[in-house]
């Protein structure tokens, strides 16, 4: 099956449209509680009018998708005919771990470890790429952000605990 055909028949578009529509509907219904309207301004000058308008726009635009998701049978759930994004999901998981690593391990170790793992995941596995690139990038980031820009990074919690 051609990619375009898979894409055209895919219901993922409608699913995403429906999710966005339901998200907007939820916000629309609860918006009076999410927006502080305690000021003296009348409604038309107040902070609620614009969010209401844009959420109504979103809900309105999502109605056809919602209808198709509920009524249509069959079709595929291909994202775009290019297969399941396993590699991207792995790299995404590593990115999330990298953010956690910034808190627990510090900038240098988490950067090096992320790059090593991510390069392995994307099949860039020569010694130079696995060791050299992470070391070089870590050194550059350390010099630019910590030395030249003087940016504060969290003290590595895990390392500090180990040191104690």
């Amino acid at each position, binding site marked *: 099956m051609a990619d375009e055909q898979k894409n055209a028949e895919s219901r*993922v578009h409608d699913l*995403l449209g429906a999710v966005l*529509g339901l998200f*907007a509907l939820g*916000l629309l219904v609860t*918006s009076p509680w*999410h*927006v*502080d*309207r305690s*000021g003296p*301004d009348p*409604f*038309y*000058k*107040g*902070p609620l*009018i*614009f*969010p209401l*308008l*844009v*959420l109504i*726009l*979103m809900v*309105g*635009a*999502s109605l*056809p*998708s919602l209808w198709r998701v509920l009524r249509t049978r069959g079709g595929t759930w291909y*994202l*775009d005919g*290019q297969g399941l*994004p*396993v*590699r*991207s999901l792995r*790299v*995404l998981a590593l*990115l999330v771990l*990298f*953010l956690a690593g*910034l*808190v627990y391990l510090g*900038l240098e170790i988490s*950067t090096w470890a*992320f790059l090593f793992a*991510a390069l392995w*995941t*994307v*099949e*860039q596995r020569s010694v130079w790429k696995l060791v050299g*690139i992470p070391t070089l*990038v870590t050194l550059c*980031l350390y010099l630019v*952000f910590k030395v030249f*820009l003087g*940016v504060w*990074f*969290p003290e590595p919690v895990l390392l500090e605990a180990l040191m104690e």
Partner: protein
Amino acid sequence: MVEQLAAGFTAAFAPANLVALLFGTVVGIVVGILPGLGPMVGMVVLLPFSFAFTPDVALSLLLGVFCGGYFGGAVPAILMRTPGVPSSLITSFDGYPLTRKGEAQTALSAALLGSFGGGVISLWILVFLAPILAHVAASFGPPEYLTVAVFGVVLVVMAFRDRLAQGLMLLGLGFWISTVGIDGSTLGARFTFGTLIMQNGLHIIPVCLGLFGIGQTLLLVERDILRGREVHLSRSTLDFSKLWLALRYWRTLIRSGVIGTFVGLLPGTGSILASFMSYDAAKRLSKEKERFGKGTPEGCLASEAGNNAVPAGTMIPLLTLGIPGDALSAVLLGVFTINGIYPGPLLLVKEPVLINTLYWSMLLINVAAFAMLVVWLRPFAMIVKVPSRLLAVVIMVISLVGIYAVNTRLFDAGVAVVMGVLGYVLLRLNWPIVNLVMGIVLGEIMENRLRQTLSLGEGSLAILLGRPISMALLGLTVLIIAGPLILDRRRAKKAEKSDFVRRAS
């Protein structure tokens, strides 16, 4: 006027500005050459660093990436039939056949000359047209600004009318994102969900960096975009004799530059249309029509002049009306507003030195990009050999550390990752992501104008009907919505009819 030009000249040639624009240009050429990245990724990755600079230096840095990207995009399009930026696809129509005939230097000379000429011509138009538009816009009040913003947004939405519902949803989502945090007028919290960290809102930088920086690179780790990795160049620099030969197409160059500028001026049209329209006009008016598509330098020159005229073209509505024409200029608008500068007709009066510095910087960027590619053609062309997956993961880590460094908040990096996932899904599904960016950038401006207009009209939008400019703009907006939809319907009916006749026969 002369004093301001001189002041702009001095500021543009200040060491910090020169370094920024040269660095930006190099980054722009590199991301332009690398298929799958493009100037948007380069701009959003550098965005966090731009905070360390004054507005003129920050804008020069990002404009360098913006313009440099279009220069670089032609190189892989000609050498490998893989466009570095989408608009360079048109350049490959004639560029790659020339490369296969062993005339890569001829194609590259024409393309680079086209890029340079298109950039300079559009800059001239910007310099002369911006004050005229600003003069007209000086009489605008909140209702006029509101209708201009609505007009611009409708143009962008209608540009993707085949995905109208998706475009509207993303525009709405962008507008909603712009409302999160403390409301500037009432200082009341909105959609913070009771958290302190959300009170600062969802900043444009992590959102854009996530959508384009992380989203695009997540896409790159699973796709090998290059069709081949062989680069054949007879010499390491550009052949100057071929450059002179390309100059005989000067009429095509001027025409394409003008077309590109005016296409860029209209929000939502984009550089692909500019490139295609310039190429099409060159083909129709050429004495060698039959050579188009088989390998003519005129085609490369026209296409590149058209797409490289777009950056200056998009600056016209951006500087005079505060309306960005595409996602790239939306990011530039974000840089202006972050620095407390609000583009509009008064910008040319209030910040004449900044504006003139921008003009000079754009000229210098065009000169620098042209000179760099002429002298270092082979080294730049060799960049395509760097594995895109390796680059993707390096860009991810630089982006996340950069985004954290802006406010030293891990929350921003988290927002970038979440937006990266959204950007990845939208890119894979081919949804019009530009609408989302336009919504985020224009949201605050539109909301303020709406509330001011409603205040003037004491709660009624009928005030718009009493103002001639607003009325005219509203009329145009209705035409832009109705016209294409009616045309599309007619076309669909015609196609249906001819299909029926064919089946019957």
